[in-house]
Structures are given as C-alpha cells and as structure tokens.
C-alpha cells in the first residue's frame, strides 16, 4: 500500500474516517473499506465506556450474525490467549499487533476461541490495535485474516499503522464532542426544571437559549417576544430592558454588585411581571472561551400559587399532619375562618393550630409564616 499507493486514495480513506466524527453512521462503511482494502475477512471497531456502561461505538464488518452473537462468549478467552489483561494493557496504542507474533500456535490452536469460533470461519490470524485507553473509555480496532488470503504481510501492517492514528484521533474528537453535548443538555435540562422563565441573550438581544417556561412565554408573546430575531419586551418595558442588557455588557461588575436589575412589565393576562436582568460573567478559569451571552433574563409573573414542600416543611419544624394541612391553606391565602369552613373544624380549633404552628416555626405572625414558606417554595415546574 505504501509507496505505490496513490496519495488520492489514502487521502480519501483518511478523510472518510474523520467524516465519522459528525456522522457516526458512516463508521460502518469506513470499517468495511479499510477491511477490504487491506484484505482482511473481518473487522471490529469498538469503544467502551469505563468503568461500565452501554457500548459507545460498535461496528463489525465481515462477520455473519451467528458468529457475531457468539463472540462475547470468547471475550475472556481472547484476553487470556493474548497473555492476560496486564499484558494487553502494555501494548502501545496505535500499534498493530499481529496475533501470530504474540501468541504461540499451540496456545492458539488449543483455545476454544480457535476451535469454536475462528477455525469454523477459516480465520487463521488476527491483528489488534489499541486506539484509546483513558479513565473513561477503551477503544480497539481488530481484524481477522482468512486462510484464503494467506499470511498477513508487512505492507498490510504498515497500512494499518498509517490508519490507526486517524481512527484514534477521530474517536477522541467524537468522545469530546459527545461529552460537550452531554454537558449542554444537562445544563439546559437543569434550567429546564425551573418554573421561572429563563432567557439568555447576547448584547444585540439575540435569543441564545430559553427554558421551557420561557418558551411558553415567547409563544404567548408576553411578556417577551421575538421580533426580527431579537428578544423584545412589551412596549412599556422594551427600552428599559434594552438599556439593562446594554448596562450588563458595559458594566457587568456594577450591575452584578446590585444583584442585577428588575424590569416591570405585564404578562398575557395583564398580570404584573418582573424581568430580572443578571449579567453573565466569564468564569475566571475559562478566559479562552469567548462568551457571547450578555445577560440572563429571569421572568417572574405575579402568581399566588406557591407550592409548599409539605413533608420537608413538617420535618424542619416538627409539624403534625393537621398542622401541615392548615399551613398549606394559610400559604394558599385562606383566612382562618375559611380554613375552618373548608376543614369542617371549629374556628377555635384552627386558631389553636395556628398558634402552635407560629410557635414551632418561630414566626410571630401569619404573614411572616407565609414569607418563610414562600422563601422555601418548590422552584420546579409542576
């Protein structure tokens, strides 16, 4: 392959390997073509997460389903054959290791792997290449040689040597891109659990991200909407919001020290809303990353439905079930009289409960209790 091998063909093969970074479904055809190019009868490319987990990448070429299904049963046998786990770990990465050079023919022919798996398929030799061995992943590429193709030649091993670094690099890049997309979806899901609407904008008010609560607001076009690709507030608040975001860009420190700023506006039903504008700072540890987001907007509509974490609240303050029930109704805004009516209790009984609740929570008044409960309220969407 080397020397006489046309550079165009080599370049195309290598390019196809890196195409798999963005289009992993292409691994199959890449493994197929390298296998046939170098005259092997089967090829297996596998990437496995450590310490355990679902296989990240598994591509096989030239093995029929029956034999493929039986392969896992010989896993330990193969490692044993190659001299055990410790020895396998010492093989250098990217280096094709020819089985017939590291395994005696007696051991090979005496193994169940040979008699039950390789020989029936006419496989006489194999090549294994370690591509990655890091704390979170192991990746290998291996090939089998059929009797009909004769012994593996030096030229074919050199061909594999040429390809191996590209397989390794492409898998490493894929792994990092995968980790990035996991991080993005995890952070987005975290903001997605929140009931408060969260909108991220750049200095031109371009929408960079909206959590589901905010998406619902944008869909209703209140209190924020998208106009010509820009996030804009309702007329009464548009200028103030734009100014606050501009301030976040120019003087993020000043705005941050004040804990951000609040913009008054109204929701779709005319309910009062505040858009909290918080400047986004770069993390000191990540100065290399250009952070194009300027501000995070948190939208809080006036809403009287405050959900109390009943169990945690009871446990924090040692409340009885009856007291928790009354607590919830107080927080929901009911008067003692209304609570008595709803629960079918005498007003005096309710009063006694309320006094006990205030005592246990250290609150002097009912409104202080509501304040306490609402500061601990469930932040998640229902």
């Amino acid at each position, binding site marked *: 392959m*080397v020397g006489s091998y046309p550079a165009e063909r080599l370049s195309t093969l290598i390019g196809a390997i890196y195409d798999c970074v963005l289009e992993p479904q292409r691994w199959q055809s890449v493994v197929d073509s390298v296998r046939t190019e170098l005259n092997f009868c089967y090829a297996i490319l596998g990437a496995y997460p450590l310490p355990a987990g679902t296989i990240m990448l598994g591509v096989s070429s030239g093995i029929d389903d029956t034999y493929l299904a039986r392969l896992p049963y010989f896993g330990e046998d193969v490692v044993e054959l190659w001299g055990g786990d410790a020895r396998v770990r010492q093989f250098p990465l990217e280096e094709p290791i020819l089985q017939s050079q590291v395994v005696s023919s007696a051991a090979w022919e005496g193994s169940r792997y040979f008699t039950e798996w390789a020989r029936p398929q006419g496989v006489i030799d194999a090549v294994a290449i370690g591509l990655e061995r890091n704390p979170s992943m192991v990746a290998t590429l291996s090939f089998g040689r059929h009797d009909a193709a004769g012994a593996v030649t030096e030229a074919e091993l050199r061909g594999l040597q040429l390809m191996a670094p590209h397989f390794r690099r492409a898998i490493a890049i894929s792994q990092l891109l995968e980790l990035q997309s996991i991080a993005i979806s995890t952070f987005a899901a975290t903001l997605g659990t929140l009931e408060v609407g969260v909108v991220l904008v750049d200095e031109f008010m371009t929408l960079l991200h909206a959590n589901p609560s905010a998406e619902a607001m944008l869909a209703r076009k209140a209190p924020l909407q998208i106009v010509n690709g820009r996030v804009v507030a309702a007329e009464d608040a548009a200028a103030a919001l734009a100014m606050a975001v501009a301030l976040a860009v120019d003087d993020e420190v000043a705005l941050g020290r004040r804990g951000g700023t609040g913009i008054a506006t109204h929701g779709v039903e005319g309910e009062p809303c505040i858009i909290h504008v918080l400047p986004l700072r770069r993390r000191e540890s990540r100065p290399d990353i250009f952070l194009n987001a300027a501000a995070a907007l948190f939208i809080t509509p006036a809403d009287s439905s405050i959900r109390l974490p009943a169990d945690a609240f009871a446990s924090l303050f040692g409340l009885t079930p009856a007291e928790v029930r009354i607590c919830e109704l107080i927080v929901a805004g009911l008067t003692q009289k209304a609570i008595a009516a709803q629960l079918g209790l005498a007003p005096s009984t309710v009063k006694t409960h309320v006094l006990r609740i205030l005592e246990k929570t250290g609150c002097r008044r009912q409104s202080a209790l509501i304040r306490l409960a609402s500061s*601990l309220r469930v932040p998640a969407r229902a």
Partner: protein
Amino acid sequence: MTAALPAEEFSAMIGEIYDCILMPERWPGTIDAIRRRLGFGSGILAVYPFSGAPSVVATANLDAASMPSASVYASEIVNLWGGLARIQRFPLAEPIAGSALQNREGPGDGWSRPRNIGDGVTLSLARDDDRVGTLAFSQLERNGDVRSDQLAALRLLAPHLRRAAAIGNIFAMRAAAIATLEATIDTLAACVFLVDETLTIIQSNKSAQAMLLSGDPISSQDGRIRLPSAAAQEALADAVALGQRGIGIPAPRANGEAAVVYVLSLPQGQTRSGAARGRSMAALFVISATSKPAPGDAVALLFDLTPSEARIFEKVGEGQELSAIADHLGIKLSTAKTHLLRVFEKTGTSRQADLVRLAASLSLPV
C-alpha cells in the same frame, strides 16, 4: 508532492491538520509545515465577515519588517483577489491561483513587488451567510507563478483543512454554549449541584462551591453529597435513585436556619447512537429561608407606588408587623396604615398575607 512525499509523512501532515480541531493553537505550526513542504512564502488563515474587520486565526512566516499587521495584510489579500464578493463565489476547498484569475484587480505590482510576492493562492474552507474562512499562501517572486504540482498538493489537503475547520467550529461553539449555561447557573443565589445516581458531584455552581467549603449543611465526602442527618441522607439517595422530581428534603443549617434540598431528576439524554446514556443525573437545588426581596424599583413602577408606599410594600412583603415598620421608618402608625391601604388598593390586594404572597412571587425563587 504526491510523488515526493512518503505516505507516512503525508498521513502525519493530515493528522496535524485534524489536531487543530481540539488544539486551535496548533494552526500556525500546521500552516507553516504545509507552507514549507509546498514551497510557499507565507500563509494566513483568517475569517472574513462581510461587515467588519477580518479575524486572523493563524499566520506563518509573515515577515514583520515588510508586512503590515496580520489583519491589514488579510484585508489587502481580499482586495488583491478582487474583493470579498468575488472570493465568496470561489468554490469551497478548491485552490485558486492569483495568476490564473482573469481581470485581476487590486493594488497589483505596487503592493506585491516591495514584498517580493510574485503570485499567491487562496483556498476557501468555510462559508456561511455572513462570513468566509480562507487560507491564503503567497509565492515568492523568484519562484514564479504558482505551479500545478503545488495546486495538486493543496487540492489533496483541502478537504482535510475544510473538515478540520468545520469540526473545530462546532467544537468552539459548543464550548461557548457550555460556558454560557455555566455562567447562568452561577448567577443563581441557590446552590446547585449536579449529581449522578451515586450522589457523586459532577458539577456545582459558585454558591454551591461556597457551601461545600463551609460544609453547612451540605458537605462532600469522597466527592459525594453528604447531609448532616442520616435520615435526610437516605431520603436524598432514594429520591435521586428513584428519579423523583420536585421532592424536598429538609436540611437545616447549623444556626437553625431552615433550608430545603430539592431533587430534580433530569430527563435521560440519548447518545448519538440512540442508546440511553449510562448514568442518570439529578440537579439538587438548595434553597435557604433567606429573604429574597423583589426589586423595589420595578415593583414601584409596576403598581405605580410612591417611594413611601414602596417601602411599606417591601417591609410588609417581608412579613413585618405594621407597628414595627412604622417605628423603623419613623412615621406614625396611622400614616403607615394609610400607605398600606393605598398599597392594597394599587396592588389589588386586601390583606397583608396577600402582599407577602405577591412580593414572594415577584422575587427570584432561585
């Protein structure tokens, strides 16, 4: 090159190009290696927005003495090639030699002669609605026009350069998205921990990092979340393991202040291959019973409150007693009552309890 370059060296050169995806700082070295191997004078990789100055990614062998700054040089190259509109029409990943262009415009000899430049080649690597990414090499005058073997070699490297630029761009954009989302979670007053099903801390925001330092009420043991009470610890482990969402676990602080750890299980993502991801994750929000006032200016504007009324709104919203508020503000109780009645009227409420609920809903919950 195709004949002269051994396959090993060719393969290694391609590998260097792809190394620039994760290590963009390697672009200058990579471009220099290509330049030397192909016999060009200097190289420059830059992104040209249709409006604004070009941003230079990397240069190789730019002679500081005879050259202007890299970005000026980049702009001059664009002029030399007949402007950005023309460059934008060049096919992607196809090297275009200057000497091959019909009706070449630009500064011409007056520009290139003092720089000893006889010819040059450009290679467009990326293009979208508002910018073009281009790699350009100059050919020293003594080497004559760009030769067909140089073009053939560049043509061979072009798809790799293009692919590396495209993947590198995605990598950089994702890194920026991660930084943005991280910064957003950092702005929250609530402590936020991301944990896996073993309660191992994967990520924590700034507030959470501060809490871990004090260990009150959450500390970390062998990298895992630790609550002071065994019962709470068990409840937390169960809630995370069962993938519960919105369950609150009591976690009083050492000084007796109430706090609740909310467990919000995150939906399991899918890998690109479609398999479920190995581990499930949960976000823990630690909410303390500290007062989180609604921004006073915005509240006043929202309900058209006078400054005195806004102060009453704020204090009553905190659950304070009216007589205490009057004392604190140095006003008569009757005056405070009048203000309060006006606040009730303007906010459409009728009880102090309602004002507390209104103020709470307008404040940041996290």
